[in-house]
């Protein structure tokens, strides 16, 4: 008989599951705007998890991190992408190779693989809930499914940002003590990456007048 999980472990697991479910919701979101809003919600969950861990584990630095991640991932990144969408006047997500149902089925299979593969590592520790790490691995893999199967630049970029959210969950549960300077450097990098993604998306839209990636097939061999 397993002992009941502590509040801390339970909360971390709940947050990780919410992040994973949001990732699935992104897979079926029909419009790009909905996708961006789901990303903002997912980032909010990650921020709440950071605040919770900061409070229960008494790691003061995590409050700073939570604040930064709130400003960056809940406000700035979605704001920038939504502005790009307003200028592009496109909202329907690029049609994917597969239907929504098949996409979800593939994602379920892939996330189960990630969950059990990482779970089988038997990562043990007194403070951390190992389930959350396995779920974070599943989030990363579903983000890959999203990027591979969606054929427009915004979905692919959001897929990358949400992959980063999955890694954030992993880092919060297994590496909460990571020095602040490093965490801030990670976030700064994300900010730079967002700006660069934005610039290249604008270049792409300026040249092709679409956000779809189906025309990006000239270079091969």
């Amino acid at each position, binding site marked *: 008989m397993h002992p009941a999980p502590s509040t801390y472990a339970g909360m971390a697991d709940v947050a990780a599951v919410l992040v994973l479910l949001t990732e699935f919701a992104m897979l079926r979101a029909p419009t790009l705007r909905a996708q961006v809003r789901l990303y903002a919600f997912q980032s909010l969950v990650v921020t709440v998890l950071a605040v919770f861990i900061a409070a229960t584990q008494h790691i003061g630095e995590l409050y700073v991190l939570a604040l930064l991640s709130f400003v960056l991932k809940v406000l700035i990144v979605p704001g920038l992408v939504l502005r790009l969408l307003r200028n592009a006047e496109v909202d329907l997500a690029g049609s994917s190779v597969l239907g929504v149902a098949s996409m979800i089925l593939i994602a379920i299979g892939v996330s189960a693989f990630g969950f059990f593969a990482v779970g089988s590592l038997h990562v043990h520790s007194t403070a951390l809930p190992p389930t959350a790490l396995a779920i974070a691995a599943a989030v990363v893999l579903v983000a890959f499914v999203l990027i591979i199967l969606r054929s427009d630049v915004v979905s692919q970029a959001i897929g990358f940002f949400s992959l980063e959210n999955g890694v954030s969950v992993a880092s919060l549960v297994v590496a909460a003590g*990571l020095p602040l300077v490093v965490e801030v450097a990670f976030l700064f990098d994300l900010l730079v990456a967002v700006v660069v993604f934005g610039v290249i998306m604008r270049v792409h839209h300026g040249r092709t007048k679409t956000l779809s990636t189906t025309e990006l097939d000239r270079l091969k061999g």
Partner: protein
Amino acid sequence: MSSIPVLLIAVPFAAAVATFFLPVRVSRVLTVVSGALVFGLSLVLIPAVTTHTAISTGSLLRVDALSVVFLIATTFLYAATAVFAGGYLNLAQSPAGTRYGRRFYAGLNLFCWSMVAAPLVNGLALLWVAVEITTVVSALLVAIDDTDGASEASWKYVLIASLGLGIALLATIIMYYAGTTVFGSAYDLSYAQMLAGAVRFPPDVVRLAFVLAVLGFGTKMGLVPVHTWLPDAHSEAPTPVSALLSGALLAISFYAILRYFQIAVRTLGPTFPRNVLLIFGLASLLLAALYLLVQRDLKRLLAYSSVEHMGILAIGMSFGAPIAIVGVLLHVLAHAAAKGTAFFGAGSVVRKFGTKDMTRIRGGITALPWSGPMLVAAVLALSAMPPFGIFRSEFLIVSGGLSDPRDTVTAVLVILVTVAFFGLSWFTTQTMLTPAILPGSPEGAGMVTPTKGEVSPWIVVSMALGLAALVILGVHPPAQLNQLLHHAASELGVPR
């Protein structure tokens, strides 16, 4: 001595800021000065790191023999590319031309700054940050030409490389977790500490972190099957950027893998990390050798040659003999010089003939009396012909493989390198050495026949620099450099 790492970081950054504001003709000179200065500073570090184990500046910067090898490769190419760019860029005397020049030089310096920073920082997390910065800066440089090809290549590059680095970030975090079992929940990922504690890390966790790191940083290094961005970005970027991507950026990603390798061999013993690198290396070498046989685009040909050489590096690391590891490190230096020179020559050809399509170019050696023959020499150097540096490094790797003994792998390595040699030299010699077809003759349809003469003397100078370095590395590497390579190889070896 401990102020040199600070200078190495400060100089290219200052150059990047200054070139954004200064007129282009000043930037041109300033970039060369900055490149030459950091190259000189890296050379100054050689005696210090071969006598001491490492030089630390504060807790953030640390230099040892391994990092100096990669610093030298990067900064040499920085200096040579700065010279080349001065001759290659042909800016219109218009506001658009000036804007392009400013962006280009600021981006070039910033790109080199991030690549110089990567081997200098102390710790796996900061290393990841530096490599991520190289990605975002170079993605903008790939897109700078604003053509359909460039925008497609830059999108593929920024997306695929960022995803790879997402995996590498996961590797960093899992490696951090492996460390918490020894150091407690709060510590930094500095190299000395990680290496000291590595024997007590949980093996399963380190195994996962190492594979993820090879996959993640391998994406940027161009290992098959995660190399798909590489030929596109290399062929569509402005040629100075192609040279830096191929000669320096791929090496820096390899450096990141080596840092994980150092930890992994301490925790897991040598067999597992070597086998992982062997699989990726063989796949890269096989695929690249076959693609080299069918390329018609000059810059894509050189890009696939990079994949081939990255495969050789990975295979060389999978051999246990110390001599093979010395060969791998020498290969990093020689490949930087050879690939830089080859891309400079390709840039000269592209500017002269206005096309990268090798079926439309004939008589390159007549049209370009200096850079033409030097391009042929650089391609022969890439195919490991003596007296160039790659001959020596591949010789060391192969003899390491035979003494290991890993005879089968070594035989496969030699065969695939020979296949690659055929592809690489067949098309370039055809392009460069076959006499130009007279315009108006029936075979001449679609051919480009430009006038005779070099595009710019600076291109010739940059190529001569690269070839001189290759000959020095091949004929008689300086004793101090040899010492550095052996020292770095012992840092990478399995501790007894």
